[in-house]
């Protein structure tokens, strides 16, 4: 019961700011609303006893990515405009896509047989995460590193071109 209540509250904490993100006409507030959304998701991770993922979620998403977004907004001339339109003429098309996606997701969620028995958690998640990365998922791990390296090099190339 307590778990359900916690889930409900965390979902609201995640979803209400998410609505603000896509509707607010003040772009700084929109970007800022990402923070409670990320923190709500962090709460869900904590409920799943994935403390390591929760910590990384705050460090990377709430701490780094949103700060960078705010940086870009504040350094753009006229970027902190208070009346930015978030909608354009493609609203009906977007709405149709959203309804279709929601329909597909609901069908998948209701048709899938979810395992209800709880699995056994390793005593120390961090070791388990590390082992998984370097054994079963080593290929994905390495490919992700290459993607990050490429974007790093790309950023340097773009920055160099200006001087």
């Amino acid at each position: 019961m307590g778990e359900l209540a916690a889930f409900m509250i965390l979902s609201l904490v995640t979803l209400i700011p998410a609505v603000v993100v896509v509707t607010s006409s003040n772009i700084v507030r929109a970007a800022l609303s990402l923070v409670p959304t990320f923190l709500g998701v962090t709460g869900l991770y904590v409920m799943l006893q994935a403390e390591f993922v929760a910590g990384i979620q705050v460090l990377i998403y709430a701490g780094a990515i949103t700060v960078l977004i705010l940086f870009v907004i504040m350094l753009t001339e006229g970027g902190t405009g208070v009346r930015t339109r978030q909608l354009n003429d493609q609203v009906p098309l977007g709405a149709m896509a959203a309804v279709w996606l929601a329909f597909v997701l609901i069908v998948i969620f209701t048709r899938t047989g979810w395992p209800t028995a709880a699995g056994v958690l390793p005593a120390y998640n961090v070791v388990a995460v590390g082992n998984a990365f370097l054994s079963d998922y080593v290929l994905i791990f390495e490919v992700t590193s290459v993607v990050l390296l490429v974007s790093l090099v790309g950023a340097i190339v773009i920055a160099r071109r200006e001087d």
Partner: protein
Amino acid sequence: MIEIAIVAVKSALLLFILLTACAYMTLLERRLLGKFQVRYGPNRVGPFGLLQPLADGLKLVFKESFMPAHVDVIVYWLAPAISMVTALFVYAVIPFGPEVMLFGQRVPLRLADVNVGILLVLATSSVGVYGIILGGWSSNNKYSLLGSLRSSAQLISYELALGLAVISVVLTAGSLSLVSIVEAQRRVWFVALQPLGFLIFLIAAVAETNRAPFDLPEAEQELIAGYQTEYGGFKFAMFYIGEYVAIVTMSALLTTLFWGGWWGPVLPGPVWFVLKTLAFVFVFIWLRATLPRVRHDQLMALGWKVLIPLGLLNLVVTAVIVVLRGT
């Protein structure tokens, strides 16, 4: 039930001690700076000026709570609160001593032993950046905005160096929990095993707390007071509390990660912890009195071209040694 009561009492006590310590740190800093500069410092309010923090606090509380024109009201009020709350939150996971027997109860001298403790500390401090960036932006003042942008650029850059030093310690101890990290230093303190890591952490910690010689965000001569220019009264005090708590936090982390936490001969654990933390607080003030401020490009170059490569090197060497020792 009794456990909840114990945690509540410990939290209240901890908050009281921290806020008092912060108030007296301002006095300590001003008195020490006076000594370093061969003058008196504040010594008139009470014996040795001991009532000065109280007088300052009262003055700040009773100041008019003004707001400049065209500010973003919600964000303007939120920013100092974020600064202060995130700074205080870290103390939930810092261990002050081993378990002790009090009134027939086993009381561990910490609020929580989270098994990703150090990660939580880093995550919280990365959220603390919002206090500065939002305070600067919402005040609708270009000096504030410039100060906050400088400050956040500095915090983000030095967080990496700080993180790399921490990861080396985590590898050496084999755990992310601060309690286990202290336990692992029972025989030899990590400052002996990780001297380079300690230096990187110390420099990055000074930069993280925006202290001299890295206090560019509030360089008075060019930016007035940076992100806090448009703040007054208790909102200003909250920024200050956040800043001073951060200094105590960094000193406590230096103690915990490198100088053996509560371990030490003769004296009981918590006393050692407080003594070591105070020693680092003194180092912070000493640095401010000794070193001139660096330029912004020097600061960024030091962070990205020296500290981060050194941190990576230290990490690789540590990892290799840990693996070799394991086999």
